[in-house]
């Protein structure tokens, strides 16, 4: 790609990503903004002061819940996805195609169905309206993604590195911590990031399984939107996308496409 083409692609991507954010930012700083106006009629910090002070505790608590749920979900997804992706990427075994079909199911089937279906089970298991239940339902979406990413990573992974390390004196454990993990770190980060963001943005499943008791940021966001206060909803939305934005910048900078193909 020539430089000008690359620059143009950059601008297109920036615009596509940035377009929805413009109005959000304007909304969050507006006091009054009626339809025909291209611009808010009155500016102000009301929305931001509201979420910082009046609703501050609520927002902070919701961020806390979201972070905990997303972090635990991502950790579990990676912890299970790593051995699963390794098995799928490195070995051939009977039923491998079946596994890949089963893994795509939660991605294809609408989340509503998955959540509704699981709800009945979770009530019986006492998982409804609990953190564990919410993390459980998030995992049904996050785990397949994590497995798919790590499957790709291990398809391009050369296990001879591990044999070489063993011969050079590394124990089984040292091979995992000193060779495998550093080698797949970029891909592993992507898998964790995907899982985290996917869990972070779950609304419907959280609401159904959490029953309104587990108030993550999206749950609060929808509640605020329902109240019809546009500027506040816009401000909360911006808080909500902040981690995704940071993650996007991080992944563009550090991982790129190389991470998905592993290291040779």
């Amino acid at each position, binding site marked *: 790609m020539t430089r000008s083409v690359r620059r143009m692609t950059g601008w297109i991507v920036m615009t596509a990503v940035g377009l929805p954010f413009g109005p959000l930012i304007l909304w969050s700083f507006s006091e009054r903004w009626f339809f025909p106006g291209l611009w808010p009629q009155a500016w102000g910090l009301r929305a931001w002061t509201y979420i910082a002070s009046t609703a501050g505790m609520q927002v902070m608590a919701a961020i806390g819940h979201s972070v905990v749920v997303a972090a635990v979900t991502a950790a579990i997804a990676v912890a299970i996805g790593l051995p699963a992706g390794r098995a799928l990427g490195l070995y051939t075994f009977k039923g491998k195609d079946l596994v890949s079909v089963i893994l795509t199911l939660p991605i294809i089937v609408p989340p509503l169905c998955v959540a509704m279906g699981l709800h009945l089970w979770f009530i019986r298991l006492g998982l409804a309206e609990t953190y564990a239940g919410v993390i459980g339902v998030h995992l049904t979406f996050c785990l397949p993604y994590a497995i798919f990413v790590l499957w790709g990573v291990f398809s391009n992974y050369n296990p001879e*590195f591990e044999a070489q390390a063993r011969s050079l*004196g590394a124990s089984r454990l040292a091979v995992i911590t000193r060779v495998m993990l550093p*080698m797949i770190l970029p891909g592993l980060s992507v898998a964790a990031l995907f899982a985290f963001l996917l869990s972070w943005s779950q609304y419907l499943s959280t609401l159904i399984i959490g029953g309104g008791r587990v108030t993550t940021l999206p749950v609060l966001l929808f509640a605020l939107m329902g109240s019809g206060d546009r500027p506040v909803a816009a401000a909360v939305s911006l808080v909500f996308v902040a981690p995704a934005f940071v993650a996007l910048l991080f992944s563009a900078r550090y991982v790129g496409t190389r991470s998905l193909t592993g290291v040779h």
Partner: protein
Amino acid sequence: MGDLRIEKLAIDYGARAVIQGLDLDVHDGEMVSLLGPSGAGKTTILKAVAGLLEPSGGNILIDGHSVRGVPPEKRNAVMVFQKPLLFPFMNVSQNIGFGLRMRGQAGGETARHVDHILALTRLEGLSRRKVHELSGGQQQRVALARALVLKPSILLLDEPLSNLDATLRQRMRELIQTIQSETRMTMLFVTHDQSEALMLSHRVALLLDGRLRQVGAPRQLFHHPADPEVARFFGGKNFFQGHIQNGMYHSDFGVFAVGPQDGNGHLRTATIRPEDIRIVPRRAESSGGLAGRIVKTNFEGSATRIVVACSAGELVVLTSQDGFLPGQEVEVTVPPDKLRLFPDA
């Protein structure tokens, strides 16, 4: 001390037996080449010695002790793979120091050993380089250094030069030879390249179809192959069928005086190396050789390979003279003293 003994080794992948009843001794300070065509099972044998693969039978002894059940990291045998396999997240000296760190050696001491090996493998000045900033030859030297620094009883080298170009390969061979004679490290060197094996090693072990066909000094294998297949592996092309009668070998290509032999009247196979056959253009008066016509010539630089059709069959001749042409009438002579008679089949 660095002594390797392989006894009745058998290895199979699933139901397929790759190695059967293999015996091989590598003595202290010796450089032995394990030579064989692709797929013969050379890598498989090295992996078994390194502990990366469980044999299905037989025994492996390192320094006189059986290593059955000993994990690779506890064996005093280090394997260098066909590909350099340098850890991409470490620089050159971190790669070389990897094994020492795994042994829990102190940082200062590790650095000292690494510096010494860097000098030995002519890698000074590259210690801080990232591995992807190295040339193929440099990468291969780092891989070698990473194993050498551990001073193992046995160094197992799996075709470490096969990915290099001809000039670089020659330089690396000389480097390995120098290092071997300086350190007296016991080495088992795997290659499919016969000239590499002949040049580098004290002894050559030829592996064909999962069995060792002949083990011996390079000259012995080259000049006195144990059977026709060994001869073929070393470039043997001319095989005669005949029988012995009172010190004479009666073959389809003529009668040759081979001295007293056992087994009068038995059918025996014989071979002659292409470079041992003499070839001259045919003249009016015969010099007592076999008459033939040139079928094909292949110019190979320092020599020309010529296929000659005689009445008894085709002979391949290698000559340093140039100027022979296809279709030309020639006379070839087989010196009886260069004829190698194989034992009774």
